[in-house]
């Protein structure tokens, strides 16, 4: 059994998950990374995807997050997510709608904005793939 550390997943509306975790896998914007106890202080942005949490009591939780920050400090790990939904409650249709909206944005914009919209679209599609992979 690995060592536990304090983990908090906060969304703007509420503290989604808080407690002792032994292992958390996070979709960082530069690639997935795993946080274990005594991770060195580290900060990164998070892309949309699935966060895998193993609580210290052995319970596993999978949460879909969108947009946010991971802040690993010596006191523990805080994940700030603009949107966080338990995978079992997750509504695929909403994501599809957002993807459709992002596609329209790409079509309607140009120049710098287009690049931004494309980045958003790519992230959304990635996250859809991640959700589908996690479900099957």
């Amino acid at each position, binding site marked *: 059994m690995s060592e536990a550390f304090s983990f*908090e997943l*906060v*969304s*703007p*509306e*509420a*503290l989604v998950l808080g407690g002792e975790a032994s292992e958390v896998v996070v979709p*960082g*914007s*530069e690639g997935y990374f795993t946080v274990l106890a005594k991770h*060195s*202080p*580290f*900060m*990164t*942005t998070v892309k949309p995807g699935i966060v895998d949490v193993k609580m210290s009591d052995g319970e596993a939780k999978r949460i879909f997050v969108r*947009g*946010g*920050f991971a*802040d690993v*400090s*010596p*006191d523990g790990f*805080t994940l*700030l997510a*603009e*949107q966080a939904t338990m995978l079992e409650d997750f509504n695929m249709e909403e994501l599809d709608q957002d993807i459709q909206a992002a596609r329209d944005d790409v079509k309607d914009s140009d120049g710098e*904005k287009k690049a931004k919209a494309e980045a958003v679209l790519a992230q959304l599609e990635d996250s859809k793939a991640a959700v589908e992979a996690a479900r099957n």
Partner: protein
Amino acid sequence: MASLKELRNRIASVKATQKITKAMQMVAAAKLRKAQVAAEAARPYSERMAKVMANISAGMEGSDSAPKLMAGTGSDQNHLLVVATAERGLCGGFNSSIARLARDQARDLLAQGKQLKILCVGKKGFDALKMEFSGILLDVVTFREIKNVGFAQANQVATQVLSMFDDAEFDVCTLFYSEFQSIISQIPTSQQLIPANVVVADDVASDADAVDVHYEYEPSEEEILEDLLPRNIPVQIFRAILENAASEQGARMSAMDNATRNAGEVIDKLTLSFNRQRQAQITKELIEIISGAEAL
């Protein structure tokens, strides 16, 4: 002097009003509790956000590469005022005090020859400002149909503000809302959103260990900050909306408490004059009967 019947009707109508204000007060009390819970729940996120912002921006101090959202555009000619108020009235001076603060600042800025635009969140602020600033009032965002205003709504406002900033429509953005102090006191507040004022909270500053820790950043500090600043805007707006919601209910509660008490006083007064008049009439009738009997 009103007749007995008129008095009786007035007492009945004031009593009905009192019942309504009493009910409104109780509803406001229940909603206030809910609003406070929501504000409480949102606190960890904005606190963490402020901490992260303070951490990163401390390292960015004085550097030229600071993003526009923090450093500003270098001019302060164009201003945007975001005025957040309630959707409904009957809450004492709540709406008018926010509107007054915004109006004073708007007059100040106009007197200094600045360009000004106003975005209203909430219908009441729009109503209060539309007479004087109809030309520069941009838009009103209302959440009237939405029961529980969530982060999505704050995000919607923020997106609008940010896209205006990207199009260089303003340089400085100020947010007006009411800080919830207690049920009897709500303080209309203005807060500069853009460029961001990073305030290092006391507990962060005193927590020297946390600041000393050497963080690794991935991607670079600048990129994180650039990503973080636009995200901070909806968080601040969301916080303002929640503070506003709590303040509104608090203000309504005390306003309705006052109204209920006033109605009680009016009822007492009316009842007194009703009784007096009835007594006078009885006396008058008695005198008529007695003098009628004496005449026989």
